[in-house]
Each structure stands twice: as structure tokens, then as C-alpha cells.
């Protein structure tokens, strides 16, 4: 799976005792350049993005009109927030957004389920051919998994989130359908974000905002693109100075291309989901694991705050699979082995565009 190694410099932030309190807040962890991360709810996505969603950033998800995969991302995001007891604001074009809360997945705990055991076993059994081993004794590299709450949970999409996660939580649900314009929604967002503003040094908690399908045709303001743009701009500026993350999904096929481009530029982290055709023999021949795939996820931009260095990912497109129909995993796309008659692919360079089927593949 692609992960990116942060550039290690000789300077490192001195984490004094005062900021140790931050690491004790569940659900937050330190990132490079003085930023902090919160989890997206999908362990693979956190790895790809280098730790999670940066606090103070705006995440945009471009929907595919033919597939509901953006809902998977939003569900995991919201469920992770509830598990970590972070305040949540959810808005959607449905008449009753509270109903969506019933579809949130439940976390799988490592004690009951062996969700990630393939990784663990490989690490335990790692044999190193190291020529200086003879100078040292046997060193145990134990994989410590403590009982503290994890930064990112694996979610079981088949089980609904238990009731005790909802109780005592601040969850605001807003329906976007009836409002003629976005001013009331904007006020709600501002008041939500003022709770988690960054003025004081100590963070109590981080907030999450999830807006589903901004620009869906049911809403009256969908054709007022200037209003939507100014709303997103003000949201972005408010979020930058608060300890929250906003995830917004929008359907690029239903809005004008200029508006879609503007939204893509406004995003700090940009991700898109795509549907795949069912029972497509060509794709089944081309990709391994096609049977289990439900869709494709592409990462276009990763948030980089307080730095000028961009993140360059090894791979930008991942296949979305449901492992055991339960948890969402993201994998690099793997090409199926080419049969011997065509042959030249193995001998070609490691870049994957060297495929012998010239006519049918267009990378």
C-alpha cells in the first residue's frame, strides 16, 4: 500500500510536558510542521494521507452519480468522531437527516476480531539478515498493542453503531432541502466552529463537520453557484482558525465545470470516488481482485499546512474493497499477470505503463 515517508529533517519539534496533554486526547495525534491529525475512520486512508485529516483543513470528495461510495467515507468519518466523542455537525439534502445516523457502522475492537492480523504476523515473523547480529544479543521486537483507545478504528459496516456512542454527544443534524439559501446554515456552522476555535493553547476536543451532497438538485440554492462558493470560502477561513475538519461531498457532474474546478481548488484534501462496471470481462482480466472491488478511490490532493513541500504519492488510485463484506480497505491496483505469449511486460522496466497490449490500454 502506498504510504509516504515524511521528510525527516534535523529539526524536530520539542514536545514538552505541556503538549503531552494533546497526545492523551483520544483521536488526535501530532503531525509534521506543527499540525495535528484526526482520523478519517478508514485506516488505509489515514496511511495514504500520511496520518489522517489535518485539523483546520477542508476535505472535498467528488462523487460519482452512479455509486454511493461517498456515503461510505462520510459514514466512517462520522462514526470515528462519535467513538472519540468529538462534536459532530451533519448536513444533507434529505428531509430527515437524523435517519442517517442509524446507518453508521460500529467499530471492531482488536480483541474480538483479527482485522489486521496479516500485517501483525508479518512483522512478528520478520527475519533480518543483519551481519552485526553476532555482536548483539537477541532483541525482542514485540508489537505492543496496548489497551488504550486507538487513533483509528476499523469499522464493521454490517453492524450499526451502538446506542451508547450517541448518548451525551453533541450531534447536530441539518437538512439543506428546505432552506432557500445558505445563510442559516452558515450561521450554524460558525457557531459550531466557535466551540472548537484555536484561540486558547489547550485543545479540549476537535470537531467534525460532514456535509453530504452539496449542490444536489433537490436544494433550492443549487443553481446559485456564487452563493455556494462564498459559503465554502467562509467555511474554509473559519475552519482554518479552529480545531475541526470539514468533509464535504459534491456531485461534479451536476454542477457547472467552472464551479467544480473552483471547489477542487478550494479543497485542502481532494479525493474522488468512481463506480466500476459490473461483470466487465475486460476489467476482470486486467486487474486482480476485481471480484471484490466495489469502486475506485483517487487521491488528488493532500493537505499540506505550514509547509511548501507537496506530498507526492506513489499511487493515486486505489481500489475500494469490502473485506469479508465488513470493513472498507483500500488497495493499490494490481495488474493481473500477463500470460506468457505476450511476455514482454515482465522484462520491461518497473514502470507499469509498459504493457504489451498496446491498443486496448490507454494509460
Amino acid at each position, binding site marked *: 500500500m502506498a504510504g509516504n515517508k515524511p521528510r525527516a529533517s534535523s529539526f524536530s519539534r520539542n514536545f514538552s510536558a505541556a503538549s503531552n496533554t494533546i497526545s492523551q486526547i483520544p483521536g488526535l495525534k501530532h503531525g509534521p510542521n506543527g499540525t495535528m491529525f484526526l482520523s478519517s475512520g478508514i485506516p488505509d486512508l489515514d496511511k495514504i494521507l500520511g496520518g489522517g485529516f489535518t485539523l483546520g483543513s477542508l476535505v472535498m470528495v467528488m462523487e460519482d*452519480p452512479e455509486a454511493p461510495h461517498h456515503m461510505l467515507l462520510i459514514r466512517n468519518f462520522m462514526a470515528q468522531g462519535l467513538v472519540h466523542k468529538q462534536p459532530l455537525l451533519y448536513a444533507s439534502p*434529505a428531509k*430527515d437527516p437524523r435517519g442517517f445516523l442509524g446507518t453508521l457502522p460500529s467499530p471492531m475492537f482488536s480483541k474480538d476480531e483479527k482485522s489486521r492480523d496479516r500485517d501483525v504476523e508479518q512483522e512478528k515473523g520478520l527475519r533480518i539478515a543483519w*551481519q552485526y547480529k553476532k555482536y548483539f544479543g537477541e532483541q525482542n521486537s514485540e508489537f505492543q498493542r496496548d489497551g488504550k483507545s486507538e487513533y483509528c478504528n476499523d469499522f464493521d459496516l454490517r453492524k450499526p453503531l451502538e446506542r451508547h456512542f450517541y448518548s451525551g454527544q453533541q450531534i447536530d443534524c441539518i437538512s439543506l432541502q428546505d432552506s432557500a439559501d445558505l445563510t442559516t446554515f452558515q450561521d450554524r456552522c460558525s457557531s459550531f466552529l466557535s466551540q472548537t476555535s484555536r484561540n486558547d493553547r489547550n485543545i479540549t476536543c476537535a470537531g467534525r463537520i460532514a456535509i453530504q451532497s452539496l449542490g444536489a438538485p433537490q436544494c433550492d440554492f443549487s*443553481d446559485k453557484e456564487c452563493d455556494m462558493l462564498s459559503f465554502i470560502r467562509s467555511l474554509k477561513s473559519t475552519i482554518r482558525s479552529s480545531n475541526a475538519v470539514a468533509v464535504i461531498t459534491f456531485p461534479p457532474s451536476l454542477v457547472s465545470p467552472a464551479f467544480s474546478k473552483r471547489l477542487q481548488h478550494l479543497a485542502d484534501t481532494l479525493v474522488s470516488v468512481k463506480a466500476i462496471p459490473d461483470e466487465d470481462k475486460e476489467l476482470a482480466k486486467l486487474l486482480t481482485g476485481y471480484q471484490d472491488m466495489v*469502486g475506485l478511490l483517487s487521491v488528488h490532493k493532500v493537505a499540506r499546512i505550514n509547509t511548501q513541500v507537496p506530498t507526492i504519492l506513489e499511487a493515486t488510485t486505489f481500489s*475500494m474493497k469490502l473485506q469479508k463484506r465488513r470493513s472498507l480497505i483500500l488497495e493499490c491496483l494490481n495488474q493481473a499477470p500477463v500470460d506468457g505469449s505476450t511476455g514482454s511486460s515482465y522484462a520491461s522496466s518497473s514502470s507499469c505503463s509498459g504493457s504489451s497490449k498496446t491498443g486496448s490500454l*490507454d*494509460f
Partner: protein
Amino acid sequence: MAERICRALRDGVLEGEHAPALTIKDSIQSPFGFLVFNHVLSQLSSFIVAQKSQSQGIVLVALSRGPLYYEELFKSKGNDVSSSNKWIRVLDCCTDPLGWRSKLMESGRIANLTLGTSTTASLYKNAKDLDKLLLAITELGKELVGDGKGRFAVAIDSVSEMLRHTSISSVAGLLSNLRSHDQVSCLFWLLHSDIHETKATAALEYISSMQASAEPRTRPVNGQRGNYEKLPFLEQNLRGGKIHVRFKRRNGRVRLMSEEFCIEQSGIKFTPISSEAEMMARSLVPKVQFNLQLSEKERNDREKVVLPFEHQGNGKTIQIYDGRKSLNEDKPEMQYTSAEKVQTVKDSGRGEIIYFRDSDDEMPDSDEDPDDDLDI
């Protein structure tokens, strides 16, 4: 495949989800959308009468053709019209959609029209107000199935007519509210795609879960519009065409299917497509990499390989192997081949590393070979 659509509508909605919604699209090149609509409507009504479907009734919102047309349709298909008020209600938005006739009648300008309406039709005069339309539809539905767990299907004769009177956002709102209504089992509508903006068509496709579009059987080679008026094309395209269906499945994959249809006296007939399947666009698959994971067998083999320094630190004397001597233990003979790199050989027994020295023709103790102290 038209069967699949009808079956999907018949099976209806699962608890807690949105109702399946079908868009039937056509255009001037293949203007047979209404025939497909009639086919789907009559299939669904026969399922309902035979009580094989989830829905117990249909509410038909008739915008482009009046209720009398539908009575004739049902009679010709053999459905029993006399009992039709048990399973169908027609909301007549065709006779007087904006209420002009009734205003004129009130003011005495025109005489009262006696329309031979059946008992199943109710007149609706407010095509511009979709909230009231939603209310009217749901009330008619409740009349049909009662207030409890019963469900009804909704058929909208032509969303294109609706879009004449109101904006796309209110139509989209109406359709999505119907989809999420507790008592609606399934929903389908007809759309003429070429008389609307692409944004409107895209919005309706976004809301629907299945799309069936009627297209001409043959397209002219150079794509000029004038060719459509050429007689052979016209003749062929007016006798039938192709229907392409896109299903949005629950797991997020899209099922694409095609069939041919031809127009006959009795209506429309579907046949599976004769020519070979079309190529799917593969441009959606970006860079793929080779598989770097190991299968189970490969992993087992890897476990068995003895690594170079592994046995060190066990108390035995350390023998540095430099690839030229042959060892006295049970290792196979080394072959001295020049210009070979270190290879890992996996076999069923102990995995071994066969080391071919890089620079065999050089003097020993040469500093250039970094594998000097490789110890296997």
C-alpha cells in the same frame, strides 16, 4: 433485460432504503419512450393484479396523456378495468394542469365539458405547485393501500411536462421525497432528454437508480443531422431500436445491459442484442502496478530460505564464505558463472541461497566486492 427492470420494480424497496426509481429516456431519433413506459406500466399492473409485487396499487400521474388513454391501454392489454379502482388511481394533470379551464367555466366563457372520466381519475389543477402535487399523490396512494404498511407504486407520465411548469430543483425535490416516502414501493417516469438542458437530465439521472434509454438502431456514419432524414435510416429507426439500461447496484457497481426492441401492432417487443458486446471504456483504469504481495505458497517458501547471517551468534565458528570454495556440508555445487547476481532459489525442501560471485576473475581480498563477508 426489460424483464429485469420490471422485476426490480416489482420487488420494490427494502426496509430503510430509498425506493428504486427508473428513468425512461428517449429522444427524437428514437421516440419510443412512451411505448417503453406503457410496457413497464402494463407489466407492473399485471404483477399487482396477480398480487405478486410489493406494491398494492399504482398512482399514475398523467401529464401528457389523459386518463381515457390509459383506460384504453389497460383494456387492450387485457387488464380488468372494472376492478381497476382497487389497484390504480390516476391523477389527471393533463386536462387542466393550470386551472385555466375551470376558471373559464366559472366565468361562463365556455360550456361545461363532460369528459368521460372513469371513477379512478381525479382532476388536479395545480401543476406549478409541486408540494400540493406530492400531497395529492400521497393521498391517492393512501386511498389505495390504506394507512398502514401497504405500499404503492408511482408512475409519472412525463417529467418533461413537469419541467415545463416548474424548475428542476422542485422536480428533483418531489422525486427524492417520493423515493424516501415510507409507503412508496417504486417509482418510474418518462423523460425526453433532448428538450432539456443537460443539467436537468443529469440531475434526474442522479436521483434515479435505473436508467433505460431508447436509442436508434443505427447511427449515420458521419454523424450529420441531415442523414437522419434519409429514408433508409428513418425506416429502420422507426421500426425499432436499442434500449440501454444502467443499473446502479447496491454494492456500488454499475450494470450495463442492452437489448433490441421492435415496434409491432400489439406494442413493443424486446429481443436480446444480436451483435457482439461493445467494448467498455478502459480509460478509467489508471496506472496499475504489479502485485507485490505474496501468495500463501510463496510465503511458505520464503519462510524456508536460510538467510546469510542467521546462524551466527549460535556459538559455532564463523566461516566467511566468499563464493569460491565449495563447502563440505550438504550444499549443492556452486557453479562459477561470471556476471550473475545473488539469486534466491526456492524449492520444496530447505530454501537455499545460491551465491554467484560477481567478480570472479579478480584477485581475492579485493576491496571492490562488498559481499566479502557474506556468511551463509
